[in-house]
């Protein structure tokens, strides 16, 4: 086994060992040991990932680690195989790097929780499956990671399992993801039917001769995308993600912002060779992404729960990533995954720090003026807010700008719509920021007297993530500013064909940047005018007078709509099948046939007389005697 293979295995197995120890023996371990073990194991994974990354350049060939043949039957053959290439390299750094920070943060955040050790077990388990997801060399292994992170998501959303609402949220997330998974499975079966393999490399080889726009492949990629819609919370399968905020905040940061929810983007980027052959699917992805980005952003404008704002923001930002993929700019989609991971994790952890300080208060109506009391949280949160809003030179600006450029090249109207989404982002984020940190405190006096900055284990990750949010964008400096400045495109270039916005001159590109940055700054100013003084405080959704705002605050009542349209009929049909069809009709026919036979058949009438026992006893004895006789003599 080569040193690279050993490093990759270390990367995989370190969090698994942590999870194994904590989930089996966690109850008898001290808390400090459990959190130290969990954090160390992920950090070890990070070191392995970093060492692997150090050996990897743009020209480095991918390597494959084939452990054993997983399952075979007939023509179907699937290996337990892992693959390391440039895309995997970057995903691993994000997962294990941010994973380590969030483990460290959780040591502080979850310190008082009675399920502390179990929490760290699940978290380690999650990192393990996330690594499987991005290292799997074929669809089946990737799917194992895909479902595994879904399991951990289920366990962690419902982590506080005494709360029935949280349990419902966990179940909803799992089931809704499974709806997407059926699409994904259908896509896999289509690929299997035609190419007889699930191996990414073999598939890439097999589709070389396929013409662009191939109808079969288009259907297959649409199916794969349905899977991505579930995992990455796109319309119409997005409603589980806001509910998933029921989980502890570090979970929201790691799973429901930085890593798992980007798995759908990973799926598309990994299979760029399929999607780039199917322009119709790419268009679908573009429009679904755009619709989701706008739809979720409008909801984010009127939410009062700090985590809900961030959740809708995540849905919206995932939409932006899909917009990039839809234009065929796969590396740009990944770029936004990368920058978003830092600033969204930062924002969630910052929100967690606020919630921690306020004894689990999440409603922004009862916050305000926290910047003096939580200075580190305040500064880092501000950095995150600027980064997500797309103000240069912070991380979000670079990736979002690249997406907008591609969109403009495709169609200026689409660019305008996406810009609108990005302006709403700036508005709701600064609304949140002002409501929480500016003005004066609006909660009760008792809580106020206990407000304190979080311990170093929590603020250190905030500072590191803030630093990353400041500089992460520099891996993709637009070529407008300097030739060969886009490191990311160079690094991924041999693996994934890099696109350039077509037909846009440098001057146009710079003008577009200027327009979007100016517009964003105007939005920030408006947000400041409305919320900056702490005078305007949002009301509860029920008290909202403006019908449009009310609809937004109530999230367009989508959940109620889904319940009415799908859940209620599904349950009613279940009742109907069980009580009427099965008990009355099918069983009724059986009983009628039985009775008919009873009244006509002499043999069965014998049984009817209750002599079954006698009959059976005779039969048993007979059989035993015959067998015994023949065996003995």
């Amino acid at each position: 086994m080569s040193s690279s293979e050993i490093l990759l295995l270390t990367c995989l197995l370190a969090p698994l060992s942590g999870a194994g120890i904590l989930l089996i023996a966690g109850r008898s371990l001290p808390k400090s040991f459990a959190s130290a073990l969990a954090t160390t194991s992920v950090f070890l994974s990070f070191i392995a990932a970093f060492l692997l990354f150090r050996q990897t350049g743009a020209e480095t060939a991918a390597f494959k680690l084939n452990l054993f043949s997983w399952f075979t039957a007939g023509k179907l053959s699937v290996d337990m195989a892992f693959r390391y290439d440039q895309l995997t390299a970057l995903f691993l750094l994000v997962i294990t790097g941010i994973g380590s920070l969030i483990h460290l943060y959780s040591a502080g955040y979850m310190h008082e929780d009675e399920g502390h050790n179990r929490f760290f077990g699940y978290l380690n388990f999650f990192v393990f499956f996330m690594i499987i997801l991005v290292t799997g060399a074929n669809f089946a292994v990737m799917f194992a990671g895909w479902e595994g992170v879904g399991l951990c998501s289920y366990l962690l959303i419902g982590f506080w399992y005494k709360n029935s609402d949280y349990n419902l949220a966990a179940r909803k997330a799992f089931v809704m993801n499974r709806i997407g998974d059926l699409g994904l499975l259908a896509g896999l079966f289509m690929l299997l039917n035609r190419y007889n393999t699930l191996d990414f490399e073999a598939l890439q080889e097999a589709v070389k001769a396929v013409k662009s726009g191939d109808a079969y492949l288009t259907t297959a990629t649409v199916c794969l995308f349905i899977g991505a819609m579930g995992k990455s919370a796109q319309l119409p399968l997005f409603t589980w993600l806001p509910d998933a905020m029921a989980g502890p905040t570090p979970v929201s940061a790691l799973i429901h912002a930085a890593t798992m929810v980007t798995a759908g983007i990973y799926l598309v980027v990994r299979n760029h060779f399929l999607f780039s052959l199917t322009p119709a699917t790419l268009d679908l992805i573009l429009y679904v992404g755009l619709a989701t980005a706008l739809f979720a952003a409008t909801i984010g404008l009127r939410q009062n729960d700090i985590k809900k704002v961030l959740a809708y923001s995540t849905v919206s930002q995932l939409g932006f990533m899909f917009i990039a993929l839809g234009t065929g700019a796969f590396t740009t989609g990944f770029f936004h995954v990368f920058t978003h991971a830092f600033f969204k994790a930062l924002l969630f952890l910052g929100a967690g720090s606020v919630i921690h300080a306020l004894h689990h208060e999440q409603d922004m109506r009862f916050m305000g003026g926290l910047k003096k009391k939580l200075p580190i949280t305040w500064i880092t949160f501000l950095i995150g807010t600027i980064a997500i809003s797309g103000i240069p030179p912070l991380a979000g600006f670079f990736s979002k700008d690249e997406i907008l450029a591609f969109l403009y090249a495709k169609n200026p109207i689409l660019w305008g719509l996406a810009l609108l989404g990005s302006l709403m982002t700036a508005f709701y984020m600064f609304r949140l920021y002002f409501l929480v940190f500016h003005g004066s405190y609006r909660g009760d006096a008792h809580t106020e007297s206990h407000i304190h900055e979080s311990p170093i284990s929590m603020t250190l990750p905030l500072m590191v993530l803030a630093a990353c949010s400041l500089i992460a964008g520099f891996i993709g400096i637009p070529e407008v500013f300097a030739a060969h400045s886009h490191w990311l495109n160079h690094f991924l270039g041999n693996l994934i064909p890099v696109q350039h916005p077509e037909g846009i001159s440098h001057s146009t590109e710079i003008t577009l940047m200027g327009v979007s940055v100016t517009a964003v700054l105007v939005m920030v100013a408006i947000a400041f005018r409305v919320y900056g003084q702490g005078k305007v405080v949002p009301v509860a959704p029920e008290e909202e007078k403006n019908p449009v705002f009310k609809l937004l605050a109530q999230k367009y009542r989508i959940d109620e709509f889904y319940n009415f349209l799908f859940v209620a009929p599904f349950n009613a049909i279940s009742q109907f099948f069980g009580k009427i069809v099965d008990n009355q009709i099918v069983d009724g026919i059986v009983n009628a046939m039985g009775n008919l036979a009873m009244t006509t058949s002499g043999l069965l009438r014998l049984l009817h007389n209750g002599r079954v026992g006698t009959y059976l006893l005779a039969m048993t004895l007979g059989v035993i005697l015959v067998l015994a006789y023949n065996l003995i003599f």
Partner: protein
Amino acid sequence: MLTALLVFLPLLVSVVVFLSPRKLAPGIALAGSLAALAIAALMINAFDPALGRQFSFEQAWLPDFGISLKMGVDGFSLLMVILTTVLTPLILASTFNQARSSGFFGLILFMESALLGVFVAQDAFLYYLFWEMALIPVYFLVLIWGNDNNKVVTYKFFVYTLAGSLFMLAGILLLYFNNPARTFDIDQLYTLQLSGNQQSLIFILMFVAFAIKLPLFPFHTWQASTYTVAPTAATMLLSGIMLKMAVYSIVRWIFPIVPLGAWVWGDVVLGMSIIGVLYGGWIAVRQDNIKTMLAYSSFSHVGLIVAGLFCFTEEGIQGAMFQSFAHGINVVGLFFIAEILFQRLQTHDLKLMGGLRVSAPVLASFFLILMFGSIGLPMTNGFIGEFMLLRALAGYKLWLGVLAGATVIIGAVYMLRAFQKSMLGGSEKETFTLSDLTLREKIILFPLAAVVIVTGIYPQLILQITGPASAKLGELFNVYLNYSSLN
């Protein structure tokens, strides 16, 4: 000789158990089942999947009628033998804390003998005899130790399955009389050249018995009520092992003997199976009795197994064999959980449960593992089986695979609902204080949970046993598949 010993040792021990005092009975029964397990272990050790039937045993019995005690073990048989011998000791041990008479334990061992007989018999008459023999202990177990309403339910179950068996007997007799050699010997039956019509008729006669035993839609209505009222040990035997008799019989007695009959009726069977997958799962979604829920879930899972078989490909058959094994492990584990809950709470009603995880975290963990095995999460046994079966179906007709694939959604809905209703939630429910697992219960659940994970990560352990046998059957049908793809 090993084969004969495997079948008759449990039978002999069962007689001893019947006659032994109540105090000794459980111990002797357990020892007997462990001895059978040891014999199975010897077989696994010496078995070579590539060699076909092994450990053959033949003894003339009633030569005038062409009946002999002919037994042997091939890949299909061995897998079922392993399932039976692994589960029986666990099922026995699951009842040890209940004050029951010697007869109870004797019947379980008697049942094991009959089941093993079905799986190794290579003579149609002998096979039929064991098939009927397996019905007897279940009848008494449900009648004597069942819950309320058991008389009506037992009666229906018994008459229904017996009626099915009579059809099978007619089918077997037809085989016998269409056979110039006038023998029940399987090797002779495999060489029969029957016309299409004869094959069709024999297929229908025999398949009715299997459709009832499995059960397939619409022959399933005995199942939920029987599973619910039966003492849980009997439910485990029924769902874990007994219904696998029918799966096994299809590959042993139908496919090789009347392939054309199976082929002709294949789409009808596929229709019945897939309706069962969706319909059964859908009904399970709103069941509040945990045993009834599991019964419908089992009905749904078995539909998929049969659908895989009737794709007539090596993949489908391998998937069906693997999933039969996986389902046996998972469903026995889940029924045992239901039993543990019943012993502590005196109810199977999910509405009356809640928050049990607070006081019984270990129980909840085992429940979680078995549940996700049943849901088919990757890295558990259920995923391998489900994936292979759906893949086989999609290979036959894509839309069928996707339609049956809805089970991945529905299965998650009913299982997670049951888990949430019983285990999760707060202390507002009365039932939230109960004692966690005892050592005995852990000893039973641990191997089951281990199999769920180990065979999910390394399924070749199971797949390699039946691989060559499935490949051979797949080849048999290649002729038909090629022929139909030409047209």
